[in-house]
């Protein structure tokens, strides 16, 4: 029995079985298997975009849901994200070449005064795991640092993180500056950090407060989809 189970040969699985197997392998954080499977699907003529969305992102969604529901914890999620990254490294140049739609791009950093970055790093890794392009500005970012990065990167999303009650109000400073300069609506603004809550996110004018890294990914996907729809209809 056990031997049989260990004996999965990825290249012998039909497409639908293989994508399901990839979901399992992502769940188990098996990077090499994911890289192999991405290669197999490319050989079978799948578009890079289909592999990204149907195999990788779909698999990471299961991981994200189980993290949200308290079934998986950070270590498992990071291993899964790492396996996903392995697949992404193969797909990334091909996605650019084929002009595939992007998942989205995020600029993220902890706000001025805040040096606590674990939460922000987790969001970064999980966003990358979900196929987003992430520019991580690190810790202690001033309004100017955020604005400069927004200008040069033109991301879809601005993410701000704070762990301290003394630093979280700075998020409002950044958002107010964006409003003043008439740029607020150019970006989806997501905020997070241990002392924050939904009420605070609303009070400072963010699009959403994200309780944890899994919620951040879900929220980012939702807002980016909404933005694309608006662009399509508008």
């Amino acid at each position, binding site marked *: 029995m*056990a031997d049989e*189970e*260990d004996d*999965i040969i990825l290249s012998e699985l039909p497409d639908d079985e293989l994508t*399901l*197997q990839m979901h*399992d392998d992502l*769940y*188990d954080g098996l990077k090499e298997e994911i890289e192999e499977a991405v290669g197999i699907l490319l050989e079978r003529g799948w578009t890079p975009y289909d592999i990204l969305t149907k195999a990788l992102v779909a698999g990471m969604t*299961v991981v994200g849901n*189980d993290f949200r*529901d*308290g*079934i998986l*914890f*950070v*270590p*498992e999620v*990071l*291993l899964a994200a*790492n396996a996903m990254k392995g697949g992404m490294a193969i797909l990334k140049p091909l996605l650019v070449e084929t002009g595939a739609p992007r998942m989205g791009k995020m600029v993220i950093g902890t706000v*001025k*005064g*805040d*040096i*606590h*970055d*674990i939460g922000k*790093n987790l969001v970064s890794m999980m966003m990358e795991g979900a196929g987003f392009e992430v520019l991580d500005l690190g*810790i*202690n970012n001033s309004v100017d640092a955020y604005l400069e990065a927004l200008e040069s990167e033109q991301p879809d999303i601005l993410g701000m993180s704070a762990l*301290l*009650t*003394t*630093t*979280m*109000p700075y998020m409002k400073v950044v958002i107010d500056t964006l409003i003043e300069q008439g740029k607020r609506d150019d970006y989806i603004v997501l905020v997070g950090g*241990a*002392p924050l*809550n939904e*009420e*605070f996110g609303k*009070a400072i004018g963010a699009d959403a407060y994200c309780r*944890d890294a899994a919620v951040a990914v879900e929220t980012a996907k939702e807002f980016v989809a909404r933005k694309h729809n608006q662009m399509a209809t508008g």
Partner: protein
Amino acid sequence: MMPYMAPVAQIGGLGCLLLVSERTHDMTDALSRLLETRDWLLADGATGTNLFNMGLSSGDAPELWNVDEPEKIRTLYRGAVEAGSDIFLTNTFGGNASRLKLHAAEGRVRELNRVAAELGREVADKADHPVVVAGSVGPTGEIMEPMGSLTYAGAVEMFHEQAEGLKEGGADVLWVETISAPEEYKAAGEAAKLAGMPWCGTMSFDTAGRTMMGVTSANMAEMVEKLPYPPLAFGANCGVGASDLLRTVLGFSAAGVERPIIAKGNAGIPKYVDGHIHYDGTPELMADYAVLARDCGATIIGGCCGTTPEHLRAMREALETRPRGPRPSLDQITESLGGFSSASDGTGDEEPPARTRRRRRG
């Protein structure tokens, strides 16, 4: 000079050989001696919260103040001592190379830790009651292998560097805190061993009753008992609110370990009210928390974020004047301190629903 220093530790002809380690615990250390004579000890409160109140700009490394603003650090320590703390933590939470690197101060680990402990020694030795200087050791902030890039050996090395500085400055005990990953906890313990220091270690249970890395209170109790160089005391600090922290302490004591348990909970939960933020835990609430913590089985009781000397005074008075009670139920905790952040904390019989995989491979 040090009334609580057992004279026996100074006996013997090894003075020359042991010059550097004359304060080590070859007989007993200061904390063990206190634990022998008392059935509860009051630790300190917040470091960050209190330093911000003294004008630390957020974004600056608090550890730089050990050298730049020593009088303010003495004031911080004295605040805890004068409020009746038996133990206070040095201002070295972010004093490892990885955290100090964020401020381009990674070359100053030894110095900043040594000075913080020296200032602590100074304050403790002038106190009117025996006070333990606990050298605070916070997390590296990095994620360990295989998920992240920090190796176990690298973590041990970083913690060891910090431990040597704290030891040199005269800290009585290393105090590892706010740890999420079991590997990082173990690495800090190994560093304590390398430095020849006794240690205590707490983890932060902030994710539905578990640490960020998924460790439950029961997991931690089990891990601690298996360590080759175990801590003098173990427990929980920070996390969500006082209620959650006590649920974790109940989990520790249910595991049946005899090692003293540490409870250092936040003064309530930060609330955003009318444009500013405050912790909703009053001194009265923290007094109730302290007594309940003792009833839950904790021996070393203190606060964490938001806990000021005023809170500590109320906690001390409550611990001195109120009788011990029976082990409280979860309902009694929520009645006194407010609700939990999650329905379950991952201990007990309820297994989370496992995902059914198509096939599993090794």
